[in-house]
C-alpha cells in the first residue's frame, strides 16, 4: 500500500498512455489498488468542489459519494462487461475487463481532480449561496461542471478506446460501445439513488434524499416526458 502511494505520480502518467496500460492488463501487480486509490482520491477532491458551493457539509458528503458512485458502477457492471467482451471476441478475462474499466474511471477521477483548482476559481466568482442570485449561480455552476465532466468523460473513454484497439483490433469500437452503454445504464440509476450531488439551494443538506430507493432515473424521465406531452 505504502509503495503504491509513493508510486502514484508515475502511475498517473502511465494511466494517460495507452501503450503502458497493456502492461497493466497483462500483469496486474497491484494496479487494481492504484486505480482504486486514484478513484478514491480524485473522486473525493472533485466531489468536495462540487458540494462546497452549497455548504461545507455537502462537500464532505459528495467527497464520499462521488468515488462511491464510480466504484459501484464499475463493480456492478463488471460481470456483464466481462461476458460481453468475451462474446465480442476480446482476448480478455473478467479480471482484465474490470481492470480496463477501472483504469478509465481512474483516469476520469484524475482528470476531474486536475480541473478542481479551476472549479475553485469559478466558485470564487459565483454569488454565494445566501445571495439573492443563488439560482443564477447554481445554473452557471451546474453548466460548468457538466462541461468539465463531459470533457473528462470523453477523454477517459477515448483512452479506453485506444487501449482496446491495441488489444482487440477492429472490435474495439463495439466493445467500448457496449461497456459504455452498460456503465451509463447503471451509472444513471446509481447517481439517482445517491443524489444530491450539487445540492439544490431550496432543499436542505442531506447525505441522501428521503427514500433514495423509491423510484428510478428512467421512471422519472418517462414521467417527465409523459407530463410534457399531455
Amino acid at each position, binding site marked *: 500500500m505504502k509503495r503504491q502511494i509513493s508510486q502514484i*505520480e508515475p502511475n*498517473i*502518467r502511465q*494511466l*494517460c*498512455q495507452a*501503450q503502458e496500460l*497493456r*502492461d497493466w*492488463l*497483462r500483469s496486474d501487480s497491484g494496479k487494481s489498488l492504484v486505480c482504486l486509490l486514484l478513484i478514491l482520491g480524485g473522486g473525493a477532491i472533485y466531489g468536495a468542489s462540487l458540494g462546497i458551493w452549497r455548504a461545507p457539509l455537502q462537500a464532505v458528503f459528495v467527497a464520499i459519494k462521488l468515488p462511491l458512485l464510480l466504484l459501484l458502477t464499475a463493480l456492478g457492471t463488471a460481470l456483464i462487461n466481462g461476458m460481453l467482451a*468475451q*462474446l465480442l*471476441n*476480446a*482476448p*480478455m*478475462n473478467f479480471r*482484465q475487463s474490470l481492470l480496463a474499466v477501472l483504469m478509465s474511471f481512474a483516469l476520469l477521477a*484524475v*482528470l476531474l*481532480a*486536475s*480541473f*478542481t*483548482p*479551476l472549479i*475553485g*476559481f469559478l466558485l*470564487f*466568482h*459565483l*454569488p454565494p449561496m445566501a445571495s439573492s442570485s443563488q439560482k443564477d449561480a447554481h445554473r452557471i455552476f451546474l453548466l460548468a461542471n457538466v462541461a468539465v465532466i463531459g*470533457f473528462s468523460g470523453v*477523454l477517459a473513454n477515448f*483512452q479506453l478506446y485506444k487501449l482496446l484497439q*491495441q*488489444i482487440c483490433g477492429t472490435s474495439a469500437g463495439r466493445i467500448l460501445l457496449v461497456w459504455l452503454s452498460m456503465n451509463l445504464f447503471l451509472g444513471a440509476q446509481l447517481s439517482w439513488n445517491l443524489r444530491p450531488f450539487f445540492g439544490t439551494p431550496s432543499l436542505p443538506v442531506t447525505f441522501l434524499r428521503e427514500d433514495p430507493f423509491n423510484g428510478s432515473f428512467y421512471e422519472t424521465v418517462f414521467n417527465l416526458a409523459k407530463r410534457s406531452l399531455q
Partner: protein
Amino acid sequence: MNTEHLTDTDEQELATDQPELVVQEAPALPKQAKIMQLVDALLKTPQTLYGHVQRNDLHAYLVKLFLIFAVCISAYGLIVGSFSGQMQWFAAPLKIFLGTCLAALLCFPSLYILSALSGADLRPAQLFGLLCSSLALLGILLSGFAPVAFIFTFSINTVSFMGSIHLLIWGISLYFCLGHLANGLATLGSGNKLMIKIWTMIFLITLLQMSTTLRPILGTSDTLLPTEKKFFLTHWLDSL
C-alpha cells in the same frame, strides 16, 4: 467465443513501434549560466532548454528563469500602471505578476494531465520547468513591447482603447509563449496537439478572467480590488 487472454506472446504480436524520443542536439547551458545566456537560449535556441527539461536538470536555472519573468513582467506592469498613475504605479505591476503566476498555478494540474494524455512522458518537475521557461519568454516579450506601450500610454486617453492595445500586446506575446510550450512538449514526446490546444484555451480564459478579478489594472478605482464579482465578458461589455 475467443477464450484466449492477453499474454506475453500477444503483447509481442500487438506491440506497436513507440517513437523514440529525440531532442535535437543543442549545446547545454553552463551550470552557472548568466541571465543573458538564458535570455539568448529562450529566444534563439529553445532546443537547449528542451534538452535540459529532458535531462531533468532545468531546475538549476529555475530561479533565474523566474527572476527574468518577475523583473520583465513587472517592468511591463510599470508601463501599464503609468496610464493612470498614483496607486497604479505599484498596484499594476504587482497585480499583473501575481495574476499571471496564479493563473499558471491554477492551470498546472490540467496541463500535467493533458500533456501526459498527449503522449509527453514528463514528471511534474520537468513540466514545471518548461512552464517557467515559457513564462520567462512571455516576460521578455512583454518587456520588449514596453516602449511601444509607453508611447501609446501618452497618446491615448480612453481606458477601453488603451486596454485593446494591451490585449493585442498580450495576444502576440502569449502566441510565442504558448508556442514555446507546445513546441517543447512536441519535442519531448507529445504527439497529440489537440490536448495542448485545449489547455491553451483553458489558460487563456483563466488569464482573461484573472484580469477581471484583479481589476482595475489599467483604470482607477477607490479600492485596490473590486467589490463586485464579474465575468470578463460582462466586464468588457460594461467597459465599452
